[in-house]
């Protein structure tokens, strides 16, 4: 029934329209109305995005729900939207997370609440645009525009050191993006088109491929982020308000991974194959080095931020081990792509799962911060005594973060480790260290914050979560468990698109 609806345009523009309405209606006097309107728009957008999943045709890698109209004909630029099995789940993650963020900000934001809500609605539309755009120019507009509301969210509702954090955040991401713009323009001049699908098909020489790959790497490595261009993330998280952290961790980091999937691998396959060692090396550094750094953090948000970097290392690892798997298969006389899909699919599953888990953990920290106005681990202790329901959620999400089977956190890591073992024993060995290190930093934090006797009068005075907080934590808990117990529907959606990606990324363009 939704087949001829412009669903993708709706999920892009409906929240932006909502944001305008909220801005127009909102002053601090009418904050309640503004919040209700914002929530309505977020919920409707989420509902509109559901048919993208239910009506999605599995078994084909072709773009679906495609919309294509001329936009700037002189430059051959189109308003071209469409999703495949890789981008569609990311859109659902975005629309779902935005609802939670609006609920989470309901009582907490007392200062310019309407503007706060509007910023998140704008961000939602723009992020959906990033995942849906099939025209590189359109993509780039969304990609850059998305930074502005986040910049504002941190800059206005952020912590005391927000100016340093915003500048750092902005400089890092923007400098990376500029290189990507250059690469996109180069591809336009080569192909005469801004269509990403045309880029996929274009023949490109080896040296240009390498330069394009490096330009993309600059953009995506910053975004995801990879060591050593990761230091903006902990600072941004620490200063961002809870909602900003949630969107940053749950969605924005995924754009780096999405960029590798949509741009680097299919557009520059030969360069990716030649430079895969670099990405794999940085991924393993992320898993191990960053894991140890997370262990010694004293600020809960920083700890989760570092944990995010380590978890995103699995995404890039799962994507780039494919080339080593092909080599292994050739040596072993097996079909070239045997056993390669599981790593790439694991990478995408990890992105979705990390969206839920990191969002949940940042919301948990937000719940504590709202009460005690501190994120320092040392200021807590024995929270379970006064907030038992909250403690149950926090332990669940911590376990998910530690990759416990039965939660979504296990699925992606498991798949990537299985995949990378085929590429090289030591990749799997180093990646699997997360089983120990990841559990250590997460559960040590839980021990110090949640367990133990009541540590202070402030902790003794804590009140357990209310209905609103219960709602968003419970929704995430359901998502984390559902994806952990039954990941088949998600993987089924991915399958055909990943198969095509594997074919593209291993076919030489020379």
């Amino acid at each position: 029934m939704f087949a001829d609806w412009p669903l993708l345009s709706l999920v892009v523009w409906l929240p932006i329209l909502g944001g305008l309405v909220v801005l127009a209606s909102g002053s601090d006097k009418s904050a309640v109305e503004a919040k209700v309107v914002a929530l309505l728009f977020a919920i409707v957008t989420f509902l509109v995005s559901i048919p993208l999943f239910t009506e999605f045709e599995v078994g084909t890698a072709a773009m679906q729900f495609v919309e294509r109209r001329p936009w700037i004909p002189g430059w051959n630029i189109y308003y071209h939207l469409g999703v495949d099995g890789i981008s569609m789940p990311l859109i659902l993650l975005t629309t779902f997370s935005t609802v939670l963020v609006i609920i989470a900000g309901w009582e907490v934001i007392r200062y310019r609440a309407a503007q706060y809500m509007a910023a998140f609605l704008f961000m939602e539309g723009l992020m959906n645009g990033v995942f849906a755009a099939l025209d590189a120019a359109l993509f780039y507009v969304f990609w850059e525009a998305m930074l502005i509301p986040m910049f504002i969210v941190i800059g206005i509702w952020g912590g005391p050191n927000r100016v340093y954090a915003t500048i750092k955040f902005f400089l890092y991401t923007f400098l990376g993006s500029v290189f990507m713009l250059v690469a996109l323009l180069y591809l336009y001049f080569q192909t005469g088109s801004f269509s990403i699908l045309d880029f996929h098909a274009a023949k490109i020489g080896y040296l240009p491929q390498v330069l394009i790959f490096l330009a993309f790497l600059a953009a995506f490595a910053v975004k995801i982020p990879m060591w050593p261009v990761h230091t903006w993330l902990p600072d941004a998280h620490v200063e961002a308000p809870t909602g900003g952290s949630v969107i940053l961790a749950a969605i924005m980091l995924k754009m780096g991974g999405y960029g590798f999937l949509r741009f680097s691998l299919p557009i520059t396959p030969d360069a990716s194959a030649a430079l895969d060692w670099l990405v794999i090396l940085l991924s393993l550094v992320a898993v191990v080095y960053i894991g140890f750094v997370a262990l010694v953090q004293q600020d809960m948000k920083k700890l989760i931020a570092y944990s995010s970097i380590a978890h995103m290392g699995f995404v890039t690892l799962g994507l780039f081990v494919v080339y080593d798997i092909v080599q292994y298969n050739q040596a072993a006389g097996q079909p070239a792509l045997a056993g390669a899909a599981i790593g790439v699919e694991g990478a995408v599953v990890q992105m979705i799962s990390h969206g839920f888990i990191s969002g949940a953990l940042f919301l948990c920290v937000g719940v504590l911060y709202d009460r005690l106005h501190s994120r320092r681990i040392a200021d807590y202790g024995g929270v379970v005594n006064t907030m038992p329901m909250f403690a149950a959620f926090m332990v669940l999400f911590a376990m998910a973060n530690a990759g416990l089977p039965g939660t979504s956190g296990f699925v992606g890591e498991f798949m990537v480790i299985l995949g990378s073992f085929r590429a090289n024993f030591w990749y799997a060995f180093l990646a699997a260290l997360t089983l120990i290190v990841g559990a250590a930093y997460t559960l040590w934090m839980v021990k110090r914050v949640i367990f133990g006797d009541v540590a202070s009068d402030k902790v003794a005075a804590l009140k357990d979560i209310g209905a609103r907080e219960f709602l968003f934590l419970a929704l995430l808990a359901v998502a984390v468990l559902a994806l952990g117990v039954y990941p088949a529907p998600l993987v089924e959606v991915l399958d055909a698109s990943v198969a095509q990606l594997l074919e593209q990324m291993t076919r030489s363009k020379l």
Partner: protein
Amino acid sequence: MFENMETVYLWVVLAPLVGSVVAGLFGWLIGRAGAHWVTIIGVGVSFFLSLVVFKHIVIDGAPAYDGTVYTWMVAGGLPIEVGFLVDELTAMMMVVVTFVSWMVHIYTVGYMRDDPGYTRFFSYISLFTFSMLMLVMANNFLQLFFGWEAVGLVSYLLIGFWYKRESAIYANLKAFLVNRVGDFGFLLGIAAVLLYFGSLRYGEVFAGVEGVAAQTLSIWPGVEWPVITVICILLFIGAMGKSAQMPLHVWLPDSMEGPTPISALIHAATMVTAGIFMVARMSPLYEYSETALAVVMVIGATTALFMGLLGLVQTDIKRVIAYSTLSQLGYMTAALGASAYAAGIFHLMTHAFFKALLFLAAGSVIIALHHEQDMRKMGGLRRYMPITWITSLIGTLALIGAPGFAGFFSKDSIIEAIGHSSLGVAGYAYACVLIGVFVTALYSFRLYFLTFHGEPRMDEHTRDHVHESPWVVTGPLIALAVPSVGIGAWYVGEMVFGDFFGRAIFVLPEHDVLGKLAASFHGPWGMVQHAFFQPPVWLAAAGVVTAWYLYLVRPELPGAIAARAGALYRFMVNKYGFDDFNEAVFAGGGRGLGNLLWRIGDVRLIDGLAVNGSARVVGWLAGVVRHLQSGFLYHYAFAMIVGLVALVGWAVFWPVE
């Protein structure tokens, strides 16, 4: 009545899960009694259905069931499923797990009566039962790993059940992390299985062993390892964590911080035997690697002896039993190394009964003495607690392998099997397990005499209030005492020397020590008679007499010996220094490395030098053009210029073709 066995299998697993979820989420609604009823009924149903399964598979001899419940995912054409494999081994484990669990549920009604976390506790132990059943009933490695980690989770939650105690929350973190070290190896083993067998299903993996047996892989350049050996050792690392084999045993003694029913259920009877079960389940793989079998045997035998020795110097009643558990797990592991899988599993079963009995009896003593665990403050309790006393004596006799009791048949089989093993390391292992018999008898009767005999050493007030525990406590003790006596004689013929496990356990003809021993097996009574001509029984008797002399006749002697032994005694009290080493090297080293990487790598080098350095450069450059722009836009503009310059340059150097 039970036409459709698939439904039965499903409900064996689901009944405890439902109980757990109801008690956990709706405990506030149904109250304490509601919580214990729903979980006791859930596990009771599961136990009853397990008996049905046992009859179906073992007694009626139905073919093994191997089926899928649902497809977890299909990744790149590879189906990964959740499913059940129910054969003789599974059926036996199901009965043991659900029976012990059921007894512990009932016992908990009495033991935890005054605890504010009552409903939560029932939810956890039912969740544990579910997880353990998922583990033993798995037909593939994914589900095995799920159960493996899920029992670890529940263990974590239960060790830290009294979360206000610093020692408890330290112990549960330690337990989880040490288990994760094992799981790390285990997961790599699973990855290796997938790579070389192309499947995670047991059936397909076992069918492909012959083909893989000849393959090698190179982990270090130039060194080729047989694939099967690598897989088996990686999987065994997981077993070392879960079944607490040296050097990954360090978490088990600390796990005694949990409530006593948990020590009985999880840290003695069921969860810690997961590793033993796993290796037996994987016998078709282990049989093809003598190297792996030798590793298993050495680790097991070493644990059996050296952990038993530590039981001699403990004063906490639960810790003595914990070290005893470590030692007995070592016996089981050593049996696996000798390819006597059936004997190892048989000891797993008898041990589950008598060790759960000993723990629950210790718990009965502990509550009678108002949570006193120090044996130096016990003594003479046989006069006050007759049921606890008699059942404890039965458990102790079973543990030391007194002829006729359950432990005798299983342990004697293990020792004989190791004695007949053809592996090169069997001599060392045989010496360890033989000396271990003496040590076991000594520490067991030390505990027994200190607790139940001699003069009462508790204070007046406590002694006046000591009385036998209520029926919910003594009932399970009696119920567990029955198999502790009888199960050995009843099942040794079939299980160890017969064809009980049939297709479930695979042994190559040249490793078949139990087959050789079966020729000289003439029924359980014959085995008892034969035992009097063998060293183990006399070693055990010597241990009992020594304990009697040291702790009842000359109670001042042990202290004097400890004083004379000085350094050795301290070394043992320090648990051979494992904890200090781990704390300093792994915990301290990890934190030190983290601080180094963070403060030097991230803060000083990346942020200090690279980022803020370039920010200063940008700031300086921006200052040059500041009069053109204001606010943050200047960064934007500046970057745009850089981009355009690069773009123009690029277009010039690589023109459009």
